């Protein structure tokens, strides 16, 4: 089980060929494991490593789509694609839109899923029904659900009908202030069931003694919730943040279909939508490649920061305890 350690100790021995026999009987057939994982390793190479390398290469060159069989030079252009990406007002708008998405999605997800998970965390009638109901949108195709939401939030849709004269004008999905928030609320709604289950699992791990000592100290229900429950499930909260960043960077189907191609006037455009429009519809693959590289770097950096942040929290907790 500690193989990563073993292979690491092998490395510092210079001059020792890798076939040096280990005293472990199992290393008699080292190729077999490699054989078992080779299709998967090949798969990762073909659909992950090669495209990643290719997109980095493309992002430093002037690259054109060509008719099959024709060879066209792709001259080195240095950082010019990156300059184009970072100064493009539409790209900047899309990053801003993702910021709006995160500002709405993360707190709303944390709040609602924590409330629903706490409510579910007891012996209750119809518990299985509630769990199933909450999880249903998570397993259903975005295309199907977006179609319903587009209709509910349409100009003459049920939501506007119910609000009467309070309905926004222009209507939700064609309103440049409201389009992105509706997308964010849709995604929150669709994924909430997953996070409710996540928090429900996390709540099981909060030690019962903490609740007892809180009640001995005379803490009220809200105070107990804030001082025991919320810190007790902070790992789940980090995961919500990390996954929300990944989802935000991923967003395509919702703005493409719900707000008709990131409309109105790019008010709900996501970076992936811009990547698609620029790279494939408008045939600027080099620009899109640079945008892709920027996004990969941003996603990896932000998730690492979010992870590091909780790890540090844990350390200070241990010192405090």
């Amino acid at each position, binding site marked *: 089980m500690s*193989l990563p350690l*073993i*292979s690491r100790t092998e490395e510092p021995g210079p001059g020792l060929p*890798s076939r040096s026999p280990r005293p472990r009987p199992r290393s008699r057939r*080292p190729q*077999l*494991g*490699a054989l*078992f*994982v080779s*299709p998967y390793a090949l*798969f*990762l190479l*073909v*659909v*992950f490593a090669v*495209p990643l390398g*290719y997109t980095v290469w*493309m992002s430093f060159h002037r690259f054109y789509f060509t008719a*099959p069989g024709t060879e066209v030079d792709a001259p080195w252009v240095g950082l010019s694609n990156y300059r184009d990406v970072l100064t493009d007002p539409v790209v900047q708008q899309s990053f801003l839109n993702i910021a709006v998405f995160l500002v709405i999605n993360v707190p709303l997800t944390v709040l609602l899923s924590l409330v*629903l998970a706490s*409510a*579910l965390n007891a012996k*209750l009638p*119809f518990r299985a029904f*509630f769990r199933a*109901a*909450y999880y249903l*949108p998570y*397993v*259903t*195709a975005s*295309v*199907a*659900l977006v*179609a*319903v939401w587009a*209709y*509910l939030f349409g100009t003459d*849709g*049920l939501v506007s*009908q119910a609000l009467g004269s309070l309905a926004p004008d222009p209507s939700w999905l064609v309103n440049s202030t409201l389009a992105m928030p509706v997308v964010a609320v849709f995604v929150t709604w669709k994924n909430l069931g*997953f996070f409710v*289950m*996540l928090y429900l699992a*996390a709540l099981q791990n909060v030690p019962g003694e903490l609740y007892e000592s809180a009640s001995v100290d005379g803490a009220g229900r809200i105070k107990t919730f804030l001082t025991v429950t919320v810190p007790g499930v902070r790992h*789940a909260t980090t995961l919500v943040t990390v*996954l929300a960043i*990944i989802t935000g960077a991923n967003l395509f189907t919702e703005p493409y279909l719900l707000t008709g191609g990131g409309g109105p006037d790019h008010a709900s455009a996501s970076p*992936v939508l811009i*990547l698609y429009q620029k*790279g*494939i519809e408008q045939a600027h*693959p080099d620009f*899109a*490649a640079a945008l*892709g590289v920027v*996004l990969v770097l941003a*996603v*990896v950096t932000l998730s690492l920061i979010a992870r590091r942040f909780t790890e540090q929290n844990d350390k200070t907790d241990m010192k405090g305890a």
Partner: protein
Amino acid sequence: MTKSRNSGRPLRMVVLLAGAVAFLFPFLYMFGESLQKATTGDLGSVIPLPGSSGTQNYEAINGAISLGTSLLNSGVFTMGVLLCTLVFGVLAGYGLARLHFRGRGTLFATLLLVQTIPFQLLMLPLYVLVVRDYGLGDSYLGMILPFAINSTAVFLFRQFFLQLPSELFEAARIDGAGELRILWRVALPLARPALLTGTLLTFIGPWNEFLWPFLVTKDVGMQPLAVSLAGFVSNLRGTVENPTGAVMAGACVLAVPAVVLFLLFQRHFTQTNIDSGIKG
């Protein structure tokens, strides 16, 4: 302690019921509207009445995008991914958990990294490679390729094989069984729950996927249902009498397989996603 847990029961039920309404209402609305002859958009259309409802919306959407072909394409796409994941994913999971070879740590680290980088960000180079360089546009192979082995499922299989007691494997090895035989005779029969969860988890990916098959298939006859339905929403609405009803009918057909599987195997869906979420 127990008193404080039970005292809030009415409040809990109110919160939970409000949640259930918010989650289920769009589904009811989708189904109700799919049966209406004319869509009015008001609350009454949730309940199908004998006089004003029927299956004409399903006939309309079938005429516009050919449900049979679309469902077949969705099915082939999904089954291809499932097959590759179950064969190569199980082998990889077993290798990562139970066999020793150089580069195992690196491969596992890559598996974890792959899960943080959304495939969408690599869509452009993949599109150029698959459609333009390999000429796999409008083919099942091109559709399946980027999804072929679900990394979350590989992770799940690895975790499962890792949990099994090592004595089991040692005993089989002492009896002289080869690794493939151990995997087939010892590990797989025990792994049925993990296989079921892996199957369900893998199923909803390609079945619900929109972006990649949308890029790869320009030929309507090759499009999975999610793509052809989205195409109908954006371009073909004018071709039927009650476009909203037809869209809702298509949405129901697209939603039903995943919803039915979920209702049948609920626990497997929720449990693993959580496990892989927390451990990953």
